[in-house]
């Protein structure tokens, strides 16, 4: 008994918590659909995009702007073909890889850097805190379009550039939220209790404060994932984001724009993919916010009952 490591978690408790989460997810049908959709999408991006890479890039001039819903053709053509006769569905699958990868990388970078700076800004001297906040101010007032253009012209076009642009512009969101949370949490009594035991600042920040703010940060990151996706699409749409032959959904919409009046489906399907993904992320983020807020949790429980 004395042998078991003192840091051991209670497996039963953990499993119970996990089950409770699943249960709460099952109760909210929208969030459940959103979660399933996103899981499938990640699967498509990880597996499908590689499997369909050849099909999606093969030009077929006879199938130019092929209309959708022609179920006699191969299933990849069910959503129609693009201006070079490439199957749209396969291209959407292919583009999902870049679209999701860019958003995921940008969000992770800004989350980690912003969170770290926010923790420091919330728990150090006034001077450092002010310095960090001023930098955040400048970043926030810097038009992201301009940053994108500058980087586009300075560096050879690559996916990394756009990730850097998006990551930098989103850092202030995490930084500010993290700082605000730290300022509130550092006044809580269990922080004082740790200080009384002699805990170092490092220990207080990373062992006591960080675990408390993580749920909030994850909720924001989910929401921000959608925002970053839209931002990337907008930049690509304007021609200052992803450059062909790389492909994302936003770029697909832009490429379909000249054919708007003759072949609406070129722009329509990738746009719909963007909407569905961002909508799922928003639904999931909403659900997370309710689940993580004990005051609102009861809504999960009685979601379907009609009550006075």
């Amino acid at each position, binding site marked *: 008994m004395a*042998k078991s490591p003192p840091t051991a978690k209670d497996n039963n408790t953990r499993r119970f918590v996990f089950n409770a989460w699943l249960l709460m997810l099952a109760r909210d049908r929208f969030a459940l659909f959103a979660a399933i959709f996103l899981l499938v999408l990640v699967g498509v991006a990880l597996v499908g995009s590689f499997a369909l890479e050849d099909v999606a890039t093969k030009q077929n001039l006879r199938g130019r702007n092929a209309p959708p819903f022609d179920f006699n053709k191969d299933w990849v053509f069910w959503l129609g073909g693009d201006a070079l006769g490439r199957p749209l569905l396969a291209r959407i699958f292919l583009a999902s890889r870049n679209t999701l990868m860019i958003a995921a990388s940008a969000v992770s970078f800004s989350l980690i850097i912003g969170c770290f700076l926010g923790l420091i800004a919330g728990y150090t001297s006034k001077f450092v805190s002010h310095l960090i906040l001023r930098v955040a101010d400048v970043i926030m007032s810097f038009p992201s379009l301009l940053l994108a253009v500058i980087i586009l012209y300075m560096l050879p076009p690559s996916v990394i550039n756009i990730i850097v642009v998006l990551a930098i512009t989103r850092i202030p969101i995490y930084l500010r939220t993290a700082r605000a949370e730290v300022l509130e949490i550092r006044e809580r009594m269990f922080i004082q209790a740790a200080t009384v035991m002699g805990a170092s600042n490092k220990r207080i920040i990373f062992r006591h404060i960080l*675990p408390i703010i993580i749920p909030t940060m994850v909720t924001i990151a989910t929401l921000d994932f959608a925002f970053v996706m839209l931002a990337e699409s907008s930049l690509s749409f304007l021609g200052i984001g992803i450059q062909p032959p790389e492909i994302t959904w936003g770029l697909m919409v832009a490429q379909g724009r000249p054919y708007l009046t003759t072949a609406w489906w070129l722009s329509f399907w990738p746009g719909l993919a963007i909407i569905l993904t961002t909508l799922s992320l928003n639904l999931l983020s909403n659900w997370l916010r309710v689940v993580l807020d004990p005051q609102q949790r009861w809504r999960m429980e009685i979601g379907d009952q009609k009550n006075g």
Partner: protein
Amino acid sequence: MAEHLLEIKDLAVVFNTIAGQVQAVNGVNLHLDKGEVLAILGESGSGKSVTASAVLNLIDMPPGEITAGEIRFKGENLFDMPPARRRDINGKNIAMIFQDPLSYLNPVYRIGWQIEEALKVHGAKEKEARLETLRLLEKVGITEPISAVRKYPHQFSGGQRQRVMIAMALALRPDILIADEPTTALDVTVQAQILDLLVNLQKETGMALLIITHDLGVVAEVANRVIVMQNGKVIEAGSVRDIYFKPSHKYTKQLIKSAPGKGKFSLGTSSSNPLLSVSKISKNYGVFRALKDISFDLMEGETVAIVGESGSGKSTTAKILLRLENANSGSVFYQNQDILTLSDQDLLKKRRDIQMVFQDPSQSLNPRMTVLQLISEAWVIHPDVLPKNKWLRRVEDLLEQVGLEKEYARRFPHQLSGGQLQRIAIARALALEPKIIICDEAVSALDVSVQAQVISLLKKLKKDLGLSYIFIAHDLPVVRDFADRVIVMKEGQIVETGLTKDIFLKPQKKYTQELLLASLEPDPDVQLARRNTRKKLLEYKI
């Protein structure tokens, strides 16, 4: 059978929560007649507040749901009425005041507007509402009502805010006033004033007063009749004297037994070795002087209580002793070293000897850590105390020492009750084998019966481990049972110091006397005597 003013029959309320349905109120019956003061006594979770909320349709539905019963006002069932009719009764016939007036007054509107609204909703004209508001404020003892109506809630003190709430509730001379823990958040002296005000207004208007409380002292002070609730049920009802002197239910008996303030006085400590020597500490926040030259000693094995009302500086003193705040001047000597000037490294060593137990254990324990992690954190910070392979064993020993099963080591704070949590907090403080434990309002957030258990645990630990305590409290009866010596503080200064017995039986300073007279006694006879003395003192003053 005669018709009662208010009658609750077989009321049942459930709350739908994530953990399943909670039966908050389960078949409650009670009645209230004109001109009487009825108290509902119960601890947290007994369903007393929910019962009262049901009368005014204040239960949030969902998650709440009234599953059975009826509430009759002057014979008419409230549940059968259309919403407009119920709104008409609210405020006009039945009014309510709440525990925490700061959050129950709208922060963004002037208090004059808020009182006038109560009048205007039920048909008063603009001008008469304004005049009536001034009259009401004067009646509840707000000085300068003309400037008061233009102020916002945050510009008043806690006691004044409760007076404003009372003015608002009484605006339309209701038949019934429901008061939900109206004085719990207030200082003792203010509590006494507010209760006096309520009783006087009740006598003057002849309304019925339904007072909800957890405090036997409040019952003894104001009520004619009392209903005891536990777990959503009424377990006993009767006159205040009957219930106090001849309780029939087991729970009531235990409740009365655990009420503090009846034990023997401590005889003081024999030791004359100061363990901790505080001298002339001062603390300023800007121009505000929070502490002015505080000096006292703590002897080995002694329990010193620091009592005072909010703003007295008692908590600031504790924070300075623990270096959670820096003093502007003064010194605290411990083992021939001034703690206030120690470097961070030296301080770390001394921290082991002085530990703290905080007021609200649900706040002072990190919610994301298991009990095992919470207690063993002390040894992560001070690795030389205990080798890692002995942690689990020691945690289990500590849990046993504070009266908990060793299985609790794997639980998270939210899986434990308030009393259990405070035991964990004590175990955590003991983990570093300290010499001194500072208890900052360590039992005030707990129910009376739990309070008694925690106090006896602290007493036992003191005997077994030779601890010394600095016990910070506003609750005098608890201090009476527990402390060897008492320091009375007011506005950042020490008013009086002495052995517990001397302070309680022969208080020298006027402030100490007032404090003692204002504190409430569960025994109705003792409380009656005290009330009369207080009245005499007041008349004498005037």
